[in-house]
């Protein structure tokens, strides 16, 4: 019985969290509960407020109003206890690149008061986990972006935190390295670590997270497991290209379909696409249909459905690339 109770404990609890920077509301009335041992993703475009939420939970920022608890500790009143029980990998690099990997981990372990013997053992453990043990005594400035990221994840785990925050863990990394890091994050789940990660990569949230909260303009738009989210907007997504988009859309509306026009295409959410497609053809007299595509909904479709606008991952990552160039110099 005790075990069950422990399983259901919340690692993170956020109640009506608000953060204002002068006139800008970065976080607007966010409430959230994250269970122990789950991987939870905050998904949203840049500037949605994800990093602000993580900074508040990590006690680096004070909320304007609302309450937040990590491992049962209040992030404002019990900041030091919170800090002891969390690990964090920041969006921007935070290693000392004049030191070796081992020295970075050693300083970290000392800051968290890990005794000498355990320090040595843990350094080996975490470095082996991220496959950097052979490079333990190399200076961090000789590491690639992906290696630095892995080292930061290793460092975040040094003191065995029960909650690990990962702020855009694969930002600016190539697809192969990204998958590599996903594997490490999945491994953490087996060790019982609660992971809260932010990302603006749909695929990342989809493949890693047990539950996802989609966040836009400082508000949580919707949350649930990836499949819950996809199911919530209907069985299939149909995309139609044709000679007269608005006319076909109107006809679909008249027949009770919830059709939208996005980027010159009609987007339709239906239960079973195969049954609807013949109907579309029967409604399209006088309109030339160029193509009809259907697929199971992706998180992109979920975002589109709940926010009413298309998700611009590429645009965001373009800005990131410029930003990364400045930061990772």
């Amino acid at each position, binding site marked *: 019985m005790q075990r069950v109770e422990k399983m259901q404990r919340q690692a993170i609890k956020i109640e009506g969290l608000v953060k204002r920077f002068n006139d800008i509301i970065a976080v607007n009335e966010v409430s959230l509960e994250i269970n122990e041992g789950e991987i939870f993703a905050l998904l949203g475009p840049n500037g949605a407020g994800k990093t602000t939420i993580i900074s508040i939970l990590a006690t680096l920022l004070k909320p304007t109003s609302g309450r937040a608890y990590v491992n049962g500790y209040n992030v404002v009143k019990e900041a030091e*206890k919170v800090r002891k029980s969390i690990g964090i990998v920041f969006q921007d*690099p*935070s290693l000392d690149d*004049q030191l070796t990997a081992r020295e970075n981990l050693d300083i970290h372990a000392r*800051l968290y*008061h890990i005794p000498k013997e355990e320090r040595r053992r843990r350094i080996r453990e975490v470095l082996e986990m991220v496959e950097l043990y052979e490079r333990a005594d190399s200076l961090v400035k000789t590491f690639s972006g992906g290696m630095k990221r892995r080292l930061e994840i290793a460092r975040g785990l040094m003191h065995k935190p029960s909650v690990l925050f990962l702020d855009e863990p694969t930002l600016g990394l190539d697809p192969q390295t990204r998958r590599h890091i996903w594997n490490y994050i999945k491994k953490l789940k087996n060790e019982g670590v609660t992971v809260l990660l932010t990302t603006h990569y749909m695929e990342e949230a989809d493949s890693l997270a047990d539950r996802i909260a989609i966040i836009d303009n400082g508000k949580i738009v919707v949350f649930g497991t990836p499949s819950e989210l996809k199911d919530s907007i209907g069985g299939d997504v149909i995309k139609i290209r044709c000679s007269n988009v608005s006319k076909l859309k109107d006809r679909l509306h008249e027949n009770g379909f919830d059709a939208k026009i996005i980027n010159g295409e009609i987007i339709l959410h239906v239960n079973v696409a195969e049954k609807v497609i013949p109907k579309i053809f029967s409604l399209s007299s006088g309109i030339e249909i160029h193509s009809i595509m259907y697929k199971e909904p992706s998180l992109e479709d979920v975002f589109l459905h709940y926010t009413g606008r298309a998700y611009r991952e590429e645009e965001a990552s373009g800005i990131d690339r410029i930003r990364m160039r400045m930061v990772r110099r």
Partner: protein
Amino acid sequence: MIHDIYTIYLREMLRLRRQRVRLVTTIVMPLLWLGIIGNAFNNAFKTVGSSLLGGDFLSFLTPGILIMTMVFTATISGITTVFDREFGFLKEMLVAPIKRESILIGKMFGGVSQAILQGIIIIVLAIFMGVSFSGASSIPGMLLTMFLVSIAFVSLGLAVASKIKSMEGFQMIMNFLIQPMIFLSGAFYPVKTLPSWLKIFVRINPLTYGVDAMRYFAIGINEFNVILDLTILAIFSILLILLGGHFFRKT
């Protein structure tokens, strides 16, 4: 808390070990001062100045150059917090379960160690150049002066670093605050014979008393009472430590 201070200090020392090249390059300037300017004026002043200087010019200049080098090093070590902020390591420390004060004190001692290490190197070099220092009994006094001067300027560096967000800003402080303070400190010339308008600036400059105390302990020459020197220096240091602490905590 002591443990945490040590950890921050340890990191500073690890970094220092990696920057041996920088340590060498910062020795070059004082070496030029002593080797060229010191020796050049040594001969020029031999006939006119020894009564005014109280000894040869090279010996007179050495404590001044010592203070100058330490002031530069100490202030620049404050720059490391700016680097930490730019390269993110400050966040790693801020999110750790340690007190802000530990970070501050650890960094201060890191800068002080670096400055004193440099001071000792210059003393050794000066001995090789033939400067005769007072006996071993003056070592505690020299170390005390070195400590007070370096902690004051590390703190100033930290205060400035907490306020100024760019390297350009730091250059401004070095050029418009630190350099004038050194030039107006009597590090390079005796204060006694200055024109009175200049003397005012020199007398209100706290660093003047640091140079004077150093000269007293190092070669036994002084202009003011050494107790007065050390008192003013101590007050100056405490004020800057408080200022540095105040600004640092706010970031």
